């Protein structure tokens, strides 16, 4: 299998019609993946849950202000960040984890690889397609929230909703690549999804709680605490949202204040690099695994 991509061009130029170009075959896979994703029950469930919970957060915070309309970057956006941290990674991880493993289980992967497409074109196609489905879900949910906030007359910054949506997408892409990595390693779809949920639990709860406990027990200095928190994509997303949407990272206390004083204008690049690493590294590893393993 690994030798196939290298030998393909020679064969193709001799007798077979030219294989489709990289972009076109990637997009073909992506479109199929997107359509399958949007039609799946899981997608529907997650999207409805995300939108409903987001609307709930918006209504509750509108009610909480007692009609004063005074809500800057208060509990509204905090609630939305919290919700995104819970739902979006779960959605992305499980979507990524289910995709390749279930294809392999059904023999679909071997079938597709028998076509004139390269392994990484399939991977990239799946990434783009699933990423687009996540984009649809995130924008639908947050768009509905923004509508409610506008209707209720809350003074949430319009740009902060756009930032939130954009950064949620980046977080989702990162988690999607982790999911694809899990999926390319696992033999069965059920194992892959189980692993994905475990990873989600670790990133959302366990690592934060462990870091909190560590910070107290080991008396971590604030710069160490900040540096360690950069390893968790959820924390990076949260800090970046606060920094970008309201430029008030100092909400997060001494460690964040240190970050602002120390890094200042470089913070965008720093957070961006962290999340980009979460997108690119697992995806690259997944490509490596896929090309080395039998599609069966």
């Amino acid at each position, binding site marked *: 299998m690994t030798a196939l991509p290298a030998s393909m061009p020679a064969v193709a130029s001799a007798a077979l019609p030219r294989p*489709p170009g990289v972009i076109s075959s990637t997009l*073909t896979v992506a*479109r*199929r993946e*997107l*359509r399958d994703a*949007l039609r799946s029950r899981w997608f529907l469930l997650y999207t409805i849950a995300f939108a409903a919970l987001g609307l709930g957060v918006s209504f509750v915070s509108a009610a*909480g*202000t*007692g*009609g*004063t*309309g*005074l*809500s*800057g970057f*208060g*509990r*509204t956006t*905090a609630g939305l960040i*919290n919700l995104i*941290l819970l739902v979006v990674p779960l959605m992305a991880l499980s979507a990524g984890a289910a995709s390749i493993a279930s294809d392999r289980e059904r023999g679909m992967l071997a079938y597709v690889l028998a*076509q004139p497409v390269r392994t990484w074109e399939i991977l990239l196609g799946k990434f783009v397609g699933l990423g*687009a*489905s996540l984009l*649809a879900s995130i*924008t639908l949910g947050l*768009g509905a*929230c*923004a*509508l409610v*906030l*506008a209707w209720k*007359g809350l*003074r*949430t*910054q*319009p*740009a902060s*909703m*756009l930032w939130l*949506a954009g950064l949620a997408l980046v977080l989702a892409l990162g988690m999607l690549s982790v999911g694809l990595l899990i999926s390319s390693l696992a033999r069965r779809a059920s194992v892959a999804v189980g692993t994905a949920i475990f990873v989600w639990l670790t990133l*959302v*709860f366990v690592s*934060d*709680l462990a*870091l*909190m406990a560590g*910070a*107290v027990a080991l008396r971590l200095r*604030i710069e160490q605490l*900040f540096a360690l*928190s950069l390893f968790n994509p959820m924390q990076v997303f*949260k800090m970046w949202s606060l920094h970008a949407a309201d430029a*008030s990272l*100092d*909400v*997060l*206390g001494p*460690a964040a204040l240190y970050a602002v004083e120390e890094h200042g204008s470089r913070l965008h690049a720093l957070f961006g690099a962290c999340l980009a690493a979460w997108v690119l590294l697992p995806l690259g590893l997944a490509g490596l695994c896929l090309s080395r393993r039998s599609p069966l």
Partner: protein
Amino acid sequence: MTSRPIHLVLAAGLALGAPAPAQEAEHAAPASAPRAAAPDPLRQGEINRLLREAPDGATVRVPAGIYREHLRIDRPVTLIAEGEVVIDGGGQGDIVEITAPDVTFRGFIVRNTGDNLDHENAGIRAVAPRARIEDNVLDDILFGIDLRESPDSIVRGNRIGGKKLDIARRGDGLRLWRSDRALVESNEMHDGRDSILWYSKGVTVRGNVGHNCRYGLHLMFSDDVTITDNEFAGNSVGIYLMYSTGVRISGNRLLRNRGPSGYGLGLKETDRFEVRDNLVVGNRAGVYIDGSPFTRAKPGLFEGNTFASNDVGIIFLPSARGNEIVGNNFVDNIDQVVVSGRGNLDANRFWRGDAGNFWSDYTGYDADGDGIGDFVHESSTLFENLMDRQPALRLFLFSPAQQAIEFVGRAVPAVRPEPRFVDEVPLMRPVPVRPEVGVDAGARLGLLASSGALLALSAGVFALAGVLPFSRRTDSSQGALS
């Protein structure tokens, strides 16, 4: 004050051998510098000449133009700018000095003082009582308006903009030193250090705007001051009272004062104060109370204020005792009320009679419909309690892990912390927000627009995938694969 004689000696030294008065000599100094070697096109010393010709009590009208001048007004006159009159200090020394009582100085543009903090170079300095300094624009100045022992003065309608310097090298936009009963009204202060009152009794500060300064307004040992209808936004601290007694603060807007201090209103060992009907929004801490009230003479009163969207509504130091916080709105502050360090707020009261405050995080209900919640409002969450002890843990705010900890705190009574404070009679509806906040149509439209953009993007993806009922089904992908 100590630097002033040195400055005069220097000026007098330069004046030796020349019959000109000291002011002329002062501006002779830059003329000797190589930069100004060419004849200066600006008019020099003309306002001083006009002043010398005018009798006491006269009204001197200065024609429009740019004057390179260091002005000393040593007789009681009224000086009025006719049109756009710019007095440029050429980046040296002070610009206008008022040494006679009852001087009015109105409508000038004063710019470009020196930047020597030791000499406290000022745009306009008054050292005599009853100065009226009105409708001037001060720009690129180290100190702006500096009243030194000028009681009963009026500073009104001026716009004071500091030099673009690092905050530590800036001067005070407005400073009152032993200037009792002064009126500071409708001024705008920006990009300065502080607007500060030193040892000045009975001052009224009304309708001013201060932004991008260190302290919007700072009181040091200044008693019986009234502070009303001002707006202090985007400073390090909005209003900071220190060691002052009998201060009334009402109708002010204290917005987005952030940074390591970042208080809307700070009270340090202040006594007999009333804080009413202020709008305190988006600050790091709405109010910071340190050792106030200082005596038991009168409770510190907070009534009718709205604290919204601050990181912390009110921070109490454990030394703060005897405050009465009644009939305020606490809306959407991340922490509504905090005790810095450990302890509770038993020495302060959050209700009077049968009315407390409105809390946006109140979880009770009002079955009998009397507008008062049927359960007491207690503030105690496990995570807030943790943050009090370990401030670095604030980094985990808004994360699901925080929620998990708070859930544990609610579910397991054994680890539930003592409440910080109790409001026995929380209000179900907010008190009217004063000063009023209109509906922000711009924000609403913007929100609608961003909502539309997001929804359109979502619809676009659905259409691209061909799953919307009205979109064309493209099966070319399957054709390519099979």
